[in-house]
């Protein structure tokens, strides 16, 4: 019997870490132009296809008396339309609704990939994907501002807040630039990435460590602890389900909020 209290530290067991988030090519031995495709890339493409397919399916054969599927589709659509877009963007919400709806469903599906069988990996726990999506949102809210107020007008609105005395402007303007154009998208991306990365890592710790302990020979206490840990990982997976939906909602709400601050008439 192992006298150590911590069997996980004797060198046999490698705890889950950052290396579990790195993937090789998804099609080893395939043609060279497919070598860049790894698991997250494949998941992102599948997620996008699923979004297209689900909304295509939800928007055809609409009836006055909705079926269960139509009710569900309309419920999600109206949650984004009324709950997020119209609530935040008021009169201008229609232009941005397609982007917000696509964003929300794409995020939701990709976050739930981390919990569902076969995938078991949230795409946005890979920071590059989160940066990409945040860059897209950045383009939308900056582009909307430029389209509405013109280049100089939008910059003046974003960089010079009302009621600030002129002698403070040299301190304020660089700060406003950094806050509105750089830290905003970065925090948007990092919030999404960090939540999913941490959540997936916790699941890995419980599942990998639990199964190691469960199959540890000649030590009943370790086996029981491993079993309990595996059972508890189910609770963590349910928490992940919630966090995935919450982060999709927050990302969409904040995108709408940024669009709203760049196109609103008065601050």
């Amino acid at each position: 019997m192992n006298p150590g209290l911590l069997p996980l530290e004797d060198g046999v067991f490698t705890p889950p870490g950052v290396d579990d988030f790195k993937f090789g090519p998804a099609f080893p031995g395939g043609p060279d132009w497919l070598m860049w495709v790894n698991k997250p890339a494949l998941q992102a493409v599948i997620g996008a296809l699923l979004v297209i397919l689900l909304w295509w399916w939800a928007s055809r054969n609409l009836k006055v008396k909705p079926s269960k599927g139509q009710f569900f589709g309309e419920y999600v659509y109206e949650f984004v339309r009324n709950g997020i877009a119209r609530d935040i963007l008021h009169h201008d919400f229609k232009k941005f609704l397609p982007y917000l709806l696509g964003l929300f469903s794409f995020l939701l599906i990709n976050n739930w990939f981390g919990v569902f069988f076969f995938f078991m990996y949230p795409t946005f726990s890979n920071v590059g994907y989160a940066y990409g999506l945040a860059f897209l949102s950045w383009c939308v809210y900056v582009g909307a501002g430029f389209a509405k107020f013109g280049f100089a007008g939008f910059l003046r609105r974003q960089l010079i807040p009302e009621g600030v005395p002129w002698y403070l402007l040299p301190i304020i303007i660089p700060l406003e630039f950094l806050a509105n154009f750089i830290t905003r998208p970065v925090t948007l991306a990092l919030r999404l990435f960090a939540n999913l990365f941490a959540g997936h890592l916790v699941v890995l710790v419980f599942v990998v460590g639990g199964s190691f302990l469960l199959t540890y020979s000649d030590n009943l206490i370790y086996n029981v602890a491993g079993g309990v840990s595996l059972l508890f990982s189910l609770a963590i997976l349910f928490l992940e389900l919630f966090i995935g939906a919450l982060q999709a909602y927050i990302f969409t709400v904040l995108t709408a909020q940024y669009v709203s601050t760049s196109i609103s008439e008065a601050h």
Partner: protein
Amino acid sequence: MNIEVIEQAFSARLTTNMGTTPPPEGAPPPLRGGSTDDGMVALSYILAGLILYGGLGWLGDHYLHTEWLLPVGLILGLATSTYLIIKRYGRLE
């Protein structure tokens, strides 16, 4: 979290026009209940202030071989951020 959002989504579905009626023109925009959203927007200001002026202070320390510019920069950055947040969001309706 945001009860109003959920309620609105529900009630919009349950009315006969299924939420397709635009809000009345000229009506004041409904007050947002989501103070959490504003908090998350304000976060970028705090970070920006700390990074910008703290960073400038750190650079100054590095090249001028002093030790007091970084804390001064951090405090100045935080103060400027707070000032900006009050200017942008602190107006009472």
